[in-house]
């Protein structure tokens, strides 16, 4: 048992204890709530709710509402975060209702979906919220029964006093508990005593999803709401010159057409604001179809932005230019980020040198729900509703742009039709707010699929040079990586195999660009893992070693006698997932006759290894099976974790194999799913088998870690199947002739 100080944001307790002081009736928003299937069939709503703290309230009948603080993008935190509160509260999950919280920095911290951090960073706070509430409930019972608190136990929402035989449901003491002072310290459960964490619980929104109930930003509707769309420059490097809306304004259902300036010239952009197009034309009307038609008819003139500041590339960039420039940069020394030993000598004295180049294109996030947001802005207040991964930062942006104090801005979060990093960048919230402000009416801004794909915050294009030096005994004596991109370098210089090789050199370079880029599921890692793990496969082959054993030998070195002091990974846990994948895939006994590839990667605090098995159907690769071994600490909701891993595997294979966005004179060449290829049913793996390392380490990330390594395992399996190495994504652009 762990005793912890209740140090989490005490404001959440302070605020709620004031609120609940009188045992007041609190509002309940049924629309925003969700619960398990069994709860939906059996629960009756209480007459009164008592707010114990900002995370939860309890009804007089024992029904519990737990707030889900973070944005839900499909990573299932709306189920798993309340599960953690419910665990420490010690309540029956079938009596729990989940409610999506608004942005509320008084109560919650880090209401952000990104970096695979929701569970990891909220873990202590969520546990404490549940444990504190439980303590207040049993204290209330102890006072009522006049018995020592220490003699009281709880079981699934019922308080027991063994000696007297007394018992009470949480609901019976909730009113009194709300008035109990917040305890100074609380006991947290031992991992072995968990009853909810570590058991599979179904998505609390599952029933609403399969019955088509309104959940997403795009589904939102309010009386008097108008629909808006934007027209943005057709190419990066261009800006608005003029537009003529005379004809469009007279089209049916059209209310107004005007330009908006998303950010003023003197405004210092925050990291979540990112956009290349700060001046847009807005079209506002009654219905989506009317506005879509008007959009087609609008006459707009664009002009090129002078290129003086962007000396690396022309003002209207093309992918061919990108590729040539990346090849040039990859061919000369970059900025040294880490150097161990004497890599120059190692390569000079090597018996064998393996040198390879890897590339990956820009990619669009393509969330299935296009960007959108609802805004209702008045002279004094702003209410916004919709899909955003970074509500807290965007509230500051909105405050600055609208000239409203933070407390007068209410950001409400919808369920999101995918995120993948795209909705970290909330310029569309500002656009919606400015349009509402101008119209003096509630407005829902909708991007068409074409807007969404051609007005992207893309995954950067990347390039890597890898070199390995082997001595006459096939020991890896030198390792050199030089990585760059447009405009970011994906290099993680202190990750494996740094620390495992005596002579090591990591360099980075970048190329400026006016194409907007940003985080895309497992930023940087989504390229590193493919390049590095493909390369290590080739190096192992050149050394005549089994690819798993080759990696394990390096990790053994990194553990026993690490090179350098700054190595970002735990060699034991890294080796653990490789050993697990070796066993689970039957690598040593079951690989004969199979085209299989292996890879392992560490990112976002978690370790993942994959084995991919491929068969060939003519010249088409068929992914027969993918194995995954994962160490992400304690798994909160196992089946949901398996689901997310399966999805990451499909997603990783899809993006490595098929997906790219290219540019010609600044213009994205793919606008919709007829030209931008995403993986489909028939191309996805026939079977996926997921294993988790069981331990008692606090949970780390899972939204991103299973995404990168499978691409490396895919490339290595493709090599086995076709005899060819795959260096350049998307792999489908290579021919698959055997």
């Amino acid at each position, binding site marked *: 048992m762990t005793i912890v100080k209740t140090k989490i944001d005490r404001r959440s307790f302070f605020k709620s204890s004031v609120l609940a002081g009188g045992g007041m009736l609190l509002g309940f928003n049924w629309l925003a709530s969700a619960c398990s299937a069994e709860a939906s069939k059996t629960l009756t709503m209480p007459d009164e709710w008592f707010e114990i703290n900002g995370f939860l309230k309890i009804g007089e009948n024992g029904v519990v509402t737990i707030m889900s603080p973070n944005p839900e993008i499909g990573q299932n935190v709306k189920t798993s975060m309340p599960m953690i509160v419910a665990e420490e509260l010690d309540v029956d999950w079938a009596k729990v209702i989940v409610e999506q919280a608004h942005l509320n920095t008084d109560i919650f911290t880090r209401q952000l979906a990104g970096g695979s951090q929701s569970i990891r960073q909220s873990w202590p706070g969520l546990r404490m919220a549940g444990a504190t509430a439980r303590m207040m409930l049993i204290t209330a019972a102890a006072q009522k029964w006049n018995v020592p608190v220490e003699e009281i136990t709880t079981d699934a929402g019922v308080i027991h006093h063994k000696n007297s035989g007394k018992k009470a449901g949480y609901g019976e003491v909730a009113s009194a508990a709300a008035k109990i002072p917040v305890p100074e310290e609380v006991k947290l459960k031992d991992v072995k005593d968990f009853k909810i964490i570590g058991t599979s619980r179904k998505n609390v929104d599952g029933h609403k999803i399969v019955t088509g109930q309104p959940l*997403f930003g795009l589904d939102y509707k309010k009386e008097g709401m108008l629909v808006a769309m934007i027209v943005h420059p057709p190419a990066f490097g261009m800006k608005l010159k003029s537009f003529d809306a005379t004809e469009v304004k007279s089209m049916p259902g059209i209310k107004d057409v005007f330009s908006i300036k998303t950010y003023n010239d003197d405004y210092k952009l925050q990291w979540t604001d990112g956009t290349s197009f700060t001046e847009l034309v807005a079209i506002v009307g009654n219905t989506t179809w009317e506005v879509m038609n008007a959009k087609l008819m609008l006459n707009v003139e664009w002009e090129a932005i002078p290129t003086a500041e962007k000396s690396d590339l022309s003002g209207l960039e093309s992918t061919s230019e990108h590729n040539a420039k990346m090849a040039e940069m990859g061919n000369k020394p970059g900025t040294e980020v880490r150097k161990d030993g004497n890599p120059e000598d190692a390569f000079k004295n090597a018996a064998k040198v393996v040198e390879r180049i890897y590339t990956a294109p820009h990619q669009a996030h393509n*969330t299935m729900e296009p960007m959108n947001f609802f805004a209702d802005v008045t002279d004094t207040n702003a209410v916004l509703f919709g899909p955003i991964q970074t509500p807290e930062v965007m509230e500051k942006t909105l405050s600055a742009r609208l000239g409203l104090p933070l407390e007068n801005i209410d950001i409400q979060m919808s369920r999101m039709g995918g995120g993948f990093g795209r909705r970290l960048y909330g310029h569309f919230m500002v656009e919606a707010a400015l349009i509402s402000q101008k119209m003096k009416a509630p407005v829902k801004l909708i991007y068409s699929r074409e807007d969404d794909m051609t007005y992207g915050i893309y995954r950067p294009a990347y390039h890597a040079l890898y070199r390995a030096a082997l001595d006459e005994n096939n020991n890896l004596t030198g390792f050199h990586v030089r990585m760059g991109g447009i405009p970011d370098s994906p290099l993680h210089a202190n990750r494996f195999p740094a620390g495992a090789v005596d002579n090591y050199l990591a360099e980075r370079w970048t190329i400026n660009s006016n194409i907007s880029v940003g985080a895309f599921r497992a930023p940087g890692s989504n390229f590193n893992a493919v390049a590095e793990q493909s390369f290590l496969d080739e190096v192992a082959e050149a050394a005549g070693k089994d690819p798993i054993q080759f990696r394990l030998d390096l990790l053994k070195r990194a553990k026993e006698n690490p090179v350098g002091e700054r190595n970002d990974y735990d060699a034991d846990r890294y080796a653990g997932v490789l050993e697990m994948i070796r066993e689970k895939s039957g690598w040593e006994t079951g690989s004969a006759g199979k085209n299989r590839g292996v890879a392992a990667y560490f990112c976002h605090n978690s370790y993942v290894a994959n084995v991919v098995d491929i068969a060939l159907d003519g010249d088409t690769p068929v992914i027969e099976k993918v194995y995954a071994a994962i160490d992400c600490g304690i798994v909160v909701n196992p089946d949901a974790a398996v689901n997310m891993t399966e999805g990451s595997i499909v997603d990783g294979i899809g993006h490595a194999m098929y997906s790219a966005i290219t540019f010609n004179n600044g213009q994205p060449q793919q606008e919709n799913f007829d030209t931008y290829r995403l993986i489909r049913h028939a191309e996805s793996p026939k079977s996926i088998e997921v294993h988790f390392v069981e331990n008692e380490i606090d949970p780390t990330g899972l939204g991103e870690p299973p995404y990168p390594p499978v691409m490396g395992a895919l490339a290595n399996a493709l090599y086995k199947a076709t005899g060819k190495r795959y260096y350049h994504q998307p792999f489908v652009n290579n021919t698959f002739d055997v």
Partner: protein
Amino acid sequence: MAVFNLKVNKKNVQVDVDPSTPMLWVLRDHLDLVGTKYGCGIAQCGACTIHLDGFAVRSCITFVDSVGDKEITTIEGLSENGDHPVQEAWMEHDVPQCGYCQAGQIMNAAAFLKSNPHPGDEEIETAMNGNICRCGTYTRIKAAIKTAANS
């Protein structure tokens, strides 16, 4: 603008819209049936799948003036209480991640199973290939379709 009398989820409804309006937007903007999703607008992703007389169609390219007296079924009308075998199988396998594409996947699967009650793996893949899931739930979708077929 023109008046259209439609039969949606067994109810007679009337809308006054431009005849070129896709059923997707008639449903979402005029009838408040937002379960049918917009994904691409060009019949490439399947998120907007509905049934016309029991057959799966893409509502983003099905114009209101082409529907006539055919019966329209949306995800909201697939079953009374969300208990269609395909919906139940989706719940059992906890298929959704973000959930946005799933109404379209379910509508496509339900129509498919009517025409082919006991499909093989390849038949499922072919039938479902027009429905994109960006979260990658394809393996669970296939498993759920098999469960629904056996129920």
